[in-house]
């Protein structure tokens, strides 16, 4: 066997290494399809009308559903939207339109820190802040935990979208004699609305799947929740509890719930992205 020349060796290394980067991409993307197909196969067979309409059955009885968890998740997402969205939006507005250097640095740093915080730590925070004083696990506490997670997501993306509004638009409005407030309300914010809606959808989709901050804030509930001041079941916590249980019937339910959750999260993501895609081309 003759030795390869130096140039041949370089060419082979080139092809092999570039091929490996392509292979890594294929491998990573295929994980997504694997998860999707696996959930559809396992969850699809356990999914039925009862899943959406009935309460969970006790161990030993087959059937039942997760209607209470679906409603519980929806309620907590509602609370998260009411609390987290406005704070995040206005903080983002403050960053892009008003803040001086020092304050902007502080707000951005705090938002980034909050964004990187493990969700379980947010759960502890809400537990000490809401659950301990009220001596009660509650829907409200779970919703607040999700809301706090939404704040930094909304803050940074709102700032980004507001900054992307061209200076010429602002100047035109100011030149016509509008005050800065009027300019922001009538010109800048409307121009960035689509981006902010996208950010809100992505934020909600992200917290919708969060389990860790709910474990000891909204806890769980085998029945309908009696109100926002009482514990509630939620889809992610149900998936967790059922997945680690030893019962086959519960495992089947967990797959069904996983399929429903993943479908909702991915649809929200795709929807948000297509909304933004339209704006970029426009």
């Amino acid at each position: 066997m003759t030795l390869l020349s130096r140039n041949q060796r370089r060419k082979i290394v080139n092809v092999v290494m570039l091929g490996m980067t392509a292979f890594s991409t294929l491998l990573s993307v295929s994980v997504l399809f694997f998860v999707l197909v696996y959930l559809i196969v396992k969850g699809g067979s356990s999914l039925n009308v009862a899943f959406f309409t009935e309460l969970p059955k006790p161990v030993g009885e087959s059937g039942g559903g997760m209607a209470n968890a679906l409603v519980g998740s929806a309620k907590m997402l509602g609370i998260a939207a009411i609390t987290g969205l406005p704070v995040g939006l206005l903080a983002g507005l403050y960053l892009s339109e008003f803040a001086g250097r020092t304050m902007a640095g502080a707000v951005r740093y705090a938002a980034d820190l909050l964004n990187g915080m493990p969700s379980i730590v947010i759960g502890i925070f809400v537990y000490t802040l809401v659950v301990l004083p009220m001596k009660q696990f509650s829907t409200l506490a779970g919703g607040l935990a999700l809301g706090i997670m939404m704040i930094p997501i909304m803050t940074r993306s709102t700032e980004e979208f507001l900054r992307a509004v061209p200076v010429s638009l602002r100047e035109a409005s100011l030149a016509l004699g509008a005050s800065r407030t009027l300019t922001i309300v009538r010109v800048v914010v409307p121009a960035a609305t689509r981006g902010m809606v996208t950010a809100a959808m992505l934020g909600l989709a992200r917290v919708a799947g969060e389990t860790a901050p709910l474990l000891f804030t909204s806890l769980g509930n085998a029945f309908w929740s009696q109100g926002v001041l009482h514990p509630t079941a939620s889809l992610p916590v149900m998936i967790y509890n059922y997945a680690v249980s030893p019962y086959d019937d519960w495992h089947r339910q967990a797959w069904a719930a996983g399929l429903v959750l993943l479908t909702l999260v991915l649809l929200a993501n795709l929807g948000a992205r297509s909304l933004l895609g339209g704006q970029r081309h426009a």
Partner: protein
Amino acid sequence: MRSILSVAATRLRKGDIVAHAFAFVFGAAVVGVTGLLAWELWRNSALARRQFGWGFLVSQTWDPVAGQFGAAAFVYGTLMTSALALIIAVPLGVGVAIFLAELAPPRLSAVAGMLLELLAAIPSVIYGLIGIAVLVPAMRQWVQPILKTATGGFPLFGGPAYGIGLLTAGIVLAIMIVPFIVSVGREVLLCVPREQREAALALGSTRWESTWKVVLPYARPGLYGAIFLALGRALGETMAVTMVIGNRPEIAASLFAPAYSMAAVIANEFSEATEELYLHSLIEVGLVLFFLTMIINVVARGLIAATAGPGTAR
């Protein structure tokens, strides 16, 4: 843009001052919430901090019945799973980032990028579900026995093959953090000026040589930033790890052994911690997580900003 706005700012009208104040309240609220978070963790871990001091991080004893708490086993589990995840995810993620930024046609790159963002959107409890159903049996039947025979009784790969354990948790984490490495890594690689690549190619280097010897060194700080960001995610990841790590508070020599992580112990034991010292000890574990992620995020952002330059750094 700033200067134009600040010219306008000199003519702030009364309504503008009100609007400014109103927005300021919410900006300050973000700082306030973060500060309050740190304060609550600090205040509610006081008992444990006073009782155990720094020994909390060194002691392996976690005995709620005797009231003895040390978090060393959890710190070990968190650091080991994160390290394993990085060992697997860094080559993979950087490989994908190179492919998307350097090789793939723009359209393919956009589609693959979007698919990876969807991968990042999958809730962690679903990774845990798949981990229990698919990865754990596969590890028990195939991967662990094969590794064991291949390494010939090396203690790191010794012990019974349970399926669950450090290695399994590391693999699940790796899958979860690849999208983070890719999305930041690709941005960083795209920040490398075109002339750098062209110069290398003009000197006769192959595509790979220009990537490996020119583009990657140029982007190195930013790539480290991407890795640190992913590490921050891995350290705090809770559900998927809790479901496959085995939840045993021990430091074992083997990667196959069941272990425990900081986030997992909080998830499992928090709602059953009835005694105050127990609760404060768990919150102190959370405090440790808080400081770890804080340091890592600061380093990551500094590194990314260093590569991205003043134009894109925020």
